[in-house]
């Protein structure tokens, strides 16, 4: 039998010659992993050389990091799955605040936090489904629909509760479960690690994940093979909304109150984490570990700048530079057709 295509064997020989470094670079999130590891080595070396000036390894600093990472992590996981499916959700920052206010006010009205928290997540899922329905039914760009959602739910917080903070005073068991410690590790950090593992299996080991990549990567192909891409997108919108609510629960349990303006800008940070983590803005490309590394990188950079006592506005400049560099890098990778 004549073999199909004898004249394009380039990938084989190239692969065989790849060094370990290049192999890591070729893996999903490999490049971001290398950047992250390099930053960690520099930070740890700096902390060991200047333990009094650069307290990166101090227990207090590690605790702050562990407490900060889960909130953005949850938002980014939800936003990331949706981005891989080919859509955006700009409303997650507002949904995060709205669902947290809803949960806190229900607890304030005497309802158990173990009931109020699932109701908050349900509200997030329903808002996600609404975003999805409007996007799909009217064939609109999700960017526009969820930009509307961003403003709507931000306003809804003020309508529902006014511009005042809401106290969150749940049962002690609830507080321990979401902001306590286990073997010295912050509970919220354990939650985010569990979510990362769960999302990894969902996206990379489950049929649904395959359909998410197919929907975002080539919608026409996915539909041609019989995948219901609208359903996949709706579920992804619901996940984004639900995870925004989970982020709200973690943040509220940690602080003990909700500020009406606390979610502003978080949606962009979540999308930034996804882009830094190697997700394509066109959909169909990315990994859960990449998203998590993107979140870790943003928080590590922020932490390092704070430890170096850099003025606040430097933070945004560095994050902005990181996003643009990551986007350029991803674009180059896409043009080369590598994972």
């Amino acid at each position: 039998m004549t073999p199909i295509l004898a004249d394009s064997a380039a990938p084989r020989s190239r692969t065989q010659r790849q060094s370990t470094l290049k192999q890591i670079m070729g893996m999903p999130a490999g490049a971001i992993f290398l950047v992250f590891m390099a930053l960690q080595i520099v930070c740890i070396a700096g902390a060991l050389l200047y333990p009094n000036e650069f307290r990166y390894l101090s227990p207090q600093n590690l605790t702050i990091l562990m407490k900060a990472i889960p909130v953005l992590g949850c938002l980014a996981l939800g936003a990331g799955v949706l981005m891989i499916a080919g859509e955006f959700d700009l409303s997650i920052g507002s949904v995060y605040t709205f669902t947290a206010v809803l949960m806190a006010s229900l607890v304030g009205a005497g309802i158990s936090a173990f009931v109020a928290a699932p109701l908050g997540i349900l509200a997030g899922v329903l808002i996600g489904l609404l975003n999805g329905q409007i996007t799909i039914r009217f064939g609109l760009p999700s960017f526009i629909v969820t930009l509307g959602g961003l403003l709507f739910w931000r306003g809804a917080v003020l309508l529902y509760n006014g511009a005042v903070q809401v106290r969150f005073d749940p049962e002690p068991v609830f507080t321990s479960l979401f902001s306590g410690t286990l073997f010295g590790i912050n509970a919220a950090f354990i939650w985010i690690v569990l979510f990362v593992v769960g999302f990894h299996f969902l996206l990379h080991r489950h049929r649904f994940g395959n359909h998410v990549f197919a929907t975002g990567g080539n919608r026409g192909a996915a539909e041609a093979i019989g995948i219901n891409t609208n359903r996949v997108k709706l579920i992804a919108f619901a996940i984004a909304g639900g995870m925004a609510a989970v982020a709200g629960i973690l943040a509220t349990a940690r602080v003990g109150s909700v500020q009406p303006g606390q979610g502003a800008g978080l949606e962009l940070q979540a999308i930034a984490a996804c882009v830094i983590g190697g997700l394509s803005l066109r959909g169909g490309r990315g990994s859960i570990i990449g998203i998590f590394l993107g979140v870790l990188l943003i928080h590590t950079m922020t932490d390092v700048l704070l430890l170096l006592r850099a003025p606040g506005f430097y933070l945004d400049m560095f994050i902005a530079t990181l996003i643009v560099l990551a986007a350029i890098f991803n674009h180059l990778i896409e043009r080369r057709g590598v994972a």
Partner: protein
Amino acid sequence: MSNLLELHNISKSFGALTALRNLSFHIGEGEVVGLLGDNGAGKSTTVNLISGIHKPTEGYLSVDGKKTAFTCRSDSADAGIETIYQHTALVDSLSITRNIFMGRELTDRFGFLRQAEMRAIAMDVLQNAVHISGIDSPDTLVGNLSGGQKQAVAIARAVYFKKRVLLLDEPTSALSVRETEALLNQVLKLKAENVSSVLVTHNIYHAYQVCDRFVIMSHGTKVFDVDKADTTINQLTEYVVLT
């Protein structure tokens, strides 16, 4: 050859525009049919009708002699018809294995992928059933393949899922000479295994190499339906160009 797929007096209109008019032809088991015609002849509409994307305005299709109505793409897939489009229906960011099983993944009862099993099958299909050279792993991303290799992966998918009819829409338009040769050989190999093919193409020379019969369309109607033994390449060219 018994008739596997038949189109009976099919018309298709899009508003005021009539794309197909009273079209009838058949595809036999293990037969390779060339569906020829110039731009605007109605070839693509015919492909979309057979693959379930469009529904006929009038007339009907039958499979194995039984009247049938495809309402969506998966209906035609269930009837054993696989359409391989010019820009193949594959996802560049997924591996060959995942593309072969896309939408028909092997999973456990919780929906988790049986990856090792899928990978082994993909490897076997690629090495034995289709034999695509230049690919050493089913984990290779489809985005890293050439146009011909992508076509071959799409054919591998059809072979594995034991399709009875391949609808190849302009399969050779983006291929090199060697790739075209290999693809046409693949069509003949599948014919030997009783798999029918419909080659929808502009290229009469490619069709002439492998087809048993030719259906020529012009302005939404069939203008010629002839066995290879009863025609010549010059006659086919005249029908395509002059009608």
